[in-house]
């Protein structure tokens, strides 16, 4: 009787620990093979055949199609440069320059990777449609209410994430530092 109870307890702990750890790692992601520059994080290896098992599990579980290495690389940011979570009710400025790439797109998603509805039907910017300063630098204002210049609406959602995709770029598995890939700064400039 006692042996049965103890075996059952051990098996119960094993299930809870095992499934719990799998759930945690596939929803939150792991640090394996990540490239972090400023507030931005990329996983260049997810677009190759030697993707780590955790990323593979996450990709299939969420139903994503990762961007292939011959195509480009995707950087995500869920926090600003001061590690404050991006808040859709605040004004956030993304400014500076981007790494060398033929095209890039910046897109706003909710926490699950879905686009956020807004009256303007604007979900992001491409490198072609952005208004730039004389020196080529740009400034995108992400806010719930309309702003002058490059305004990206948040729809007022509480938490969101940004994805910067570089297409046809030398940035990838070999990239290590800010010098190889100068990423734009993210700053929260005001909250109501």
């Amino acid at each position: 009787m006692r042996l049965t109870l103890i075996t059952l307890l051990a098996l119960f702990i094993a299930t809870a620990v095992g499934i719990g750890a799998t759930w945690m790692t596939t929803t939150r992601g792991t640090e394996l093979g990540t490239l972090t520059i400023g507030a931005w994080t990329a996983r260049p290896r997810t677009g190759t055949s030697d993707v780590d098992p955790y990323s593979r599990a996450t990709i299939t579980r969420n139903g994503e199609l990762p961007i292939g290495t011959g195509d480009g690389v995707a950087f995500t940011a869920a926090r600003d440069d001061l590690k404050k979570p991006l808040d859709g009710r605040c004004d956030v400025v993304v400014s500076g320059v981007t790494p060398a790439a033929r095209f890039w797109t910046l897109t706003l998603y909710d926490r699950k990777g879905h686009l956020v509805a807004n009256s303007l039907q604007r979900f992001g910017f491409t490198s072609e449609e952005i208004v730039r300063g004389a020196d080529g630098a740009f400034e995108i204002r992400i806010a719930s209410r309309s702003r002058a210049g490059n305004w990206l609406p948040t729809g007022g959602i509480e938490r969101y994430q940004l994805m910067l995709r570089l297409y046809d770029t030398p940035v990838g598995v070999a990239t290590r530092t800010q010098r190889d890939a100068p990423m734009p700064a993210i700053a929260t400039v005001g909250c109501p």
Partner: protein
Amino acid sequence: MIRLVFTIIAGVLLGGIVHLVSVLLLPRIATEDAYSRLTPITKLNAVTQLAPADPTNALMPYMDPAFAVAICRYDLSGGAIKLKVPVSQAYTSVSFYTRNELAYYAINDRSAGKKVIELDLMTEAQHNDLPEDEDVTAADRLIIDSPTATGLIVMKALAAEPGLMPQAQASLAASSCSVQTEMPAKQAEAPQARR
């Protein structure tokens, strides 16, 4: 007491194994993966255009709304696939995924270097069966080996501005993906036809 501690340690160790096994098995048992989501709305061995990504059709997460996307869901058991994608004005890319969404190859319009991206997709066995003909190994014929018999080809064309989306979709509409029937016979004829 000792027995309880031992039970907990054994449980945690066993849990580690359960975790590793479940992570490794997840790609095989996931039912909501991209391939399964695309199966009902795409044709086999043919090009299907997807509706532009917007908040109301969240087919897959993290889709780039600036791109027109077309899918060719392939099955190589009936023979190799011939893929032709005309290059759009801005940027075109073709990515290959296995049945379990492993991105094993991707090419863009610049690396293709032509007005039409032309590829042959086949399994390794089919590649080995190809006759060792000079024409077959000619540099203008790009052959991709698929690690699995089934998978996805994702064709993307960039609409640099929202107004250019119809043009990007039109260029993808001209792409084709079809099974190459009687491959060796065709190759035998081809050199004669050119002369």
